[in-house]
Structure formats: C-alpha cells, structure tokens
C-alpha cells in the first residue's frame, strides 16, 4: 500500500504528511510543557516562601549556548541535505548529535552536584519543579538524540532508496529539535533566572 504525499507536498494543503504530523505533534508537546509550566506558576504564586538561588545559573548558561549552537548546526544540516550536499549534511548532523550529548553531560553534572548537597526533589517544591521540568526536557533531548543516531546509522539507508523521504525526515527532526531548544529557553528564563 503506497501512501500519497509522504514525499511531495499536497498542492491544496501545502504539506507533506510528515510535516503536518510533526506540527501536530509539536502542538501536543506545547500543551504538555504548558501543563507543567502553568503548574509551576500556580505553585510558586501560591507559596508563602519560594526558595531561590539554589540553581546553578552558570552551568545552565553554558547549556543554553550549547543548545543554541546545536540549533544552528541542525538547520545547516537539513539545509545542506536539501541542496544535495551529503558530506556537509553529515558533518553538521553529527555535530548536532555531539552537542546534544554535551548538553546531557553538563546536565548530569548539575544533577550530581545537587544530589551530593542533599537537594532531593522531596526537599521542597522548588526542587520538585526543577527536577520534573528539566528531567522532562532532558527526556526530549534523549528522544531527539535517538532519532538522530537512527538517521545517522540504519536510517541512512533510506537515502539510497528514497532520498526525498529521507530529506523530509531530517527536516522534521530539525523542526522538533528547534522546538526542544525553544522549550529550553523558557526553562532557562523561568526556572533559573526568575
């Protein structure tokens, strides 16, 4: 069974199936993070005392730079693939995956630091929100990383048989990656800076 419009855009809707699905998925993700962010706002607004100053702004700032850089490499990667420059695409895509690993490394260093000081999620709701929100975001980074590794490894074979579909997949992964980066910016501002 062949499914139409998985490679080419349907003229009257302006989408390929994968693009539309990715946007819908991101809408759903926005509601998921929206749920956690609004819970954070409600808990913090209702608290008599909300401990601040425990979070490590420096590691988070470095992580912000890392993710912003990965945003750039990701868009360069999908752009290069669209232009048919395979080697350039590979280079930028691998760079994105490496930056994702760096992000997770710095994040786990941050967690270890908190835990060694006895700052567990059960201590107060500020820490509970911190672990839940950054943990949920880190899970999304892990998810993106798995997709990237798949597309670099076994998934790359698709490029030989159906390059159009492969290009779409990379573009949609990029779309998701930009979304995860935007979520991180919100986390950084609302959790670390406020």
């Amino acid at each position, binding site marked *: 069974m062949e499914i139409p419009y998985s490679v*080419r855009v*349907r003229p009257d809707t302006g989408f390929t199936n994968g693009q539309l699905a990715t946007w819908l998925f991101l809408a*759903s993700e926005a509601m998921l993070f929206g749920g956690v962010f609004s819970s954070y706002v409600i808990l913090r607004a209702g608290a008599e005392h909300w401990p601040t100053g425990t979070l490590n702004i420096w590691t988070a700032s470095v992580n912000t730079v890392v993710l912003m850089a990965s945003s750039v490499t990701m868009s360069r990667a999908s752009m290069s693939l669209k232009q048919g420059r395979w080697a350039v695409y590979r280079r930028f895509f691998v760079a994105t995956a490496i930056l994702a690993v760096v992000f997770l490394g710095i994040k786990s260093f941050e967690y270890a630091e908190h835990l060694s000081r006895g700052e567990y999620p059960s201590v107060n709701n500020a820490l509970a929100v911190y672990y839940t929100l950054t943990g949920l975001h880190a899970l999304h980074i892990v998810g993106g990383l798995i997709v990237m590794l798949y597309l670099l490894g076994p998934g790359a074979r698709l490029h030989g048989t159906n390059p159009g579909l492969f290009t779409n997949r990379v573009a949609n992964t990029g779309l998701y990656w930009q979304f995860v980066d935007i979520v991180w910016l919100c986390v950084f501002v609302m959790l670390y800076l406020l």
Partner: protein
Amino acid sequence: MAAVFIDRALVPSSTGDELPTGDVPHMTQLPFWRRYVFSQDHKVVGIQYTLTGFLFMLLGFIVMMVIRWQLAYPAQPIPLIGGFLGVANAPGGIMLPEFYNQLGAMHGTIMVFLGVVPVAVGGFGNYLVPLQIGAGDMAFPKLNMASYWLYFCGGLLMLASFFAPGGAAQSGWTSYPPLAVIAPGQTIWLVGMVFLITSSLLGSVNTIVTVVQLRARGLGWMRLPFFVWAQFVTAFLLLLAFPPLEAAASMQLMDRLANTSFFMPSGLVFSGQKLTVAGGGNPLLWQHLFWFLAHPEVYVLILPAMGIVAEVITNNTRKPLWGYRALVVSALCIGFMSLTVWAHHMFMTGMGTTMSTFFQVTTMLISIPSVVILAVLILSLWGGSIRFTIPMLFALAFLPMFGIGGLTGLPLGLAPTDLHLHDTYYVIGHFHYVVAPGTIFALFAGVYYWFPKVTGRALSNRLGQLHFWGSLICMNIMFMPMFIQGLGGMNRRMYDGGLQYAHNQPLLKWNLVIGMAAWTLGLFQLPFIVNLFSSSRRGTLVDRNPWQATTLEWLAPSPPGHGNFESEPVAYRGPYEYSVPESDTDFTPQFSREARP
C-alpha cells in the same frame, strides 16, 4: 504557514510518492502474524481496536454487576464469582470496602479509557475514516499499529494492577490527591495512563493527517460525511487535551515515587499521623489539570456517536441531512468550547465565585451547539420515509436518551443547583444517560450498520430486535431511579449503598430495582454476542451496498481488500443525496458520475 521543506524543483520526479516495493508488501505475501496480529492495515487495526474495546466494555460491565450486588444486598456473599475473588478482596465472598473502591475506580477507567473511546475512535475511526474519504489506508500505517499495541499494553497493565500487592487503583477514576497519592494501586494506574495517552496521541495525529491529506479527488471539506468531521474534531481534542493530564500524571508519579509535594498541602494528617512530606502543594491543581482533559473527553465520547447517528439517520430516512452546515459548525464550536468549561466539575471546591461564574457561563454556552446538533438530527426525521432497521432503532433511541442526559446536565452546570446535586446519584444518572444509552447505543447502531461492510454478511434481525428492546428497557429502569435517589440526597461512592444515613432509607429500595435491571441488561447482551459470532460465519451474504447508502465506503467491496478500492474513487457530489427529484433511484452516491437532473 509551516515552512514548506520540499521545493518541488529539488525533488526529482522519479523519487515521487511511490514507496519502494518491499517496504509495505502486499497483504497476501505477508505471514499470518503480520496480517492479523502486527498488522498495519487500518481495517485490521480497526477491528482489533473494536474487539478489544468491546471485551474491556464487557469486563467493565461485569465489574458494575458486582458493584450493584454489593449495593442491592450489602454484606451478603456475592453469588457465582464471590469465591474466586480471594481472601484479600472478599473473605467468604463478602466484598471488603477497599475492594469496592477498586471496582468503582476501575469501572470508570475501563469504560472510558479502555472501552468506549477505543471503540468509538480507535475502532470506528480507524476502519471508516479512510474508507469514507476514499483513501487506501491511514497516513501512517506503522504508527497506527503502534497506537493499538500501546493501548493493548496500557490495558493489560490496568488489569494486572488487580493482582498487584494492595490491589488496583482505588481513588476513583478521577484520582484526586491527596488520597490518590497515599492509596495503593495508583502507581500502576498512572503508568497505564501514560501508555494510553501516548497511544491516543499517535492515533489522533494519524487521523488528522489522514483527513487533511488523503481525501479523494473531488472530496472538498463540505462534502465530507459528518462522521468524518466528528472524528476530525475528536482527534483535535485528544491531541490537545490529553497532554496536560500526562503532565499531571508525571507530577503525581513524582509525588508517589520521589516523595515530592506537587499536590500535597502542608500539615496533612493521615490515620492520626502527620505525613512526612515537604508540603506546600496544591490538590486543586490536579483537579484543574485532570478536568482540562476529562471534560473534553466527554465530547470525545459523544462526538463520534453523533457522527454515527447522523450517518444512520440519513440513510434510513432516505432524505438529505437537514442542516449539514449547522452540524459541522456546531461540531467545531463544541471542539473549541469544550476546552473552556472544565471547572464546572469543581463548584464545590471553594475556588471562588468569579471562577464559578465564568465556568457557568461557558457551560451554558456550550449547550447551544449540542442542542443544535440534536435538533438537526430530530428535524432530519421530518417527512422522511423511515426504515425501522436495527441500526435505525438504536439511532432513534439515541436521540431521547442523549436528550435526557444532556438536559439533566444543565442543573449540574449551574453552581446553585450543583451544590445540592454534586456527588449524588443524580450525577451518575446524568452522565450514564449520555454515555450508556447515548454513546454505547450509537456504537451498537454503528456495529449493525457497518457489519455488512466489514464481513460481507448481515447481522440477524431477530436477535437484533431482542438486543435493542431489552437493552432500551433495562437501561431506563437502571438509570431513571438514580435521579430520584440523587435528588433525595443519596451520595455516590457509598460502600453499603447509603445504608447508615436516615435520609437514604426511603431510597434504598431502588438499589434492588437498579440491580435487577443491571443483571437483566447483562442477559440481553447475549443475543448481541451470539449474533456477532454466528452472523460473521453464517449470516446472509450481501453485496457492497446493502443499505443503498451514498458515502464512499459503500463503493469498496465487502469486505474491502488491501488498499480498499479497486480503482481511484472520485467524489462528484455531497455526502447525502437521497431522493433527488427525477432520479431513478432514491439515492445518488457520492461516487455516482451521472449529472444532476
């Protein structure tokens, strides 16, 4: 608009839309387990969803019959199955209160999340949406398969929780904290919900993309059958309303496993002991997040039902649907507005009069499109030459039953009356009228209507009559007395049926009546089960359009083969052109090419 990643000029036409052969091979080349177990065909997935969903519904029904025994005959041994429930649940066959609470929570969970929604959306949606829009399959067959198996695992997990230490979840299907954070069984429930939410996410993305992208040539938006519109709006609700519950479920899991205090207020005392949690949490936050899903969920339950009823009614009145545009606009309005009414479940929580006023107003407003839909369906009967087929009987019964359910909801949507009725049997009566003789009747109508398409054979009329009349009478004897009990102030969730309260004494006799009706209703489902199995093998053979219907699914063979249509279907007209003047037949299908007279 979304960035268009593929510039036509950059994609060589040879890499067009054909998938390489071998990626999804033809059905007949596939081994058994890929054809029927891990199938990617939307029709097989739809049948899997329907059968699994009906099995879960049967299970939820049995749970309910046990509950009704406890209410009709408190502290008496349960007959037949009492001995098998185990000493931890029912020593000597007599149900313990903890087990009663598990049954209550799991009846709701099973019926809503594992029964009705999977049949209405996963089953009917999967099977019919591609056929009605003239597509060969869903847009993402692999996701479709994954969606079913995630649902299946979530369901198994929920069932397995009965056998876990401490038993299944017992804090109601609403899982209000702090109780839900303290009570046993809840962790498995939450993990099960994460599976179900993921499954519904995949399913809803798939449905929306399928409707937007795979409509046949000539099938513009205003030529879509109303059933497709209903599924389309439902998919958006599932897509946008479920994630906040997933967020809430994650936080409740954190509360249970990492000992956080998202929903745990300070100074909580349990069994005379102060709880060792940090506190500072907000139990109302859970209610907001939960109902933000669970109210749209009500429309997830009802919209596909309305879609089915609209199809059956037009087909059996042999005239066009009266007010198709009004129906579509109302369904869209319901979709948007259902995201703004959730806190009418929370008038008793002390959230404040400003909030109550806002949610009263939105609740009254959303009843307008609901009434429009019901009015359109009733007015469509006017002047029709009605065929009283079995699907039509169920569809006709849906109208007053859903009407009763909807109208009894108005006093619950207004805070002053809700203060009296909240958490009484009146509420139980109200939403069961919506879901049981409402949605489930519509699902039955759908099964009788599309069974010939799915199997190529018709269901028995005589068994269908027995099933319909028995169910209709029993349902009303079951749910009508609940209004009397509720207005009399009888509380829901009472282990002994409200025995210890003086004001309940004149109402207790109804518990027996309701119980009798419930068990009889169980008996009247037997003809349906027998009918399904015997007719699928020995039923009368039918051609591809036995109801003389107009929508595209009737163009495909019965049962449709892999890829559904023998040639590319084209829609030449609207979905409901019945009794067109000067036409030879009283129906002109969408796929009929002949010019308008």
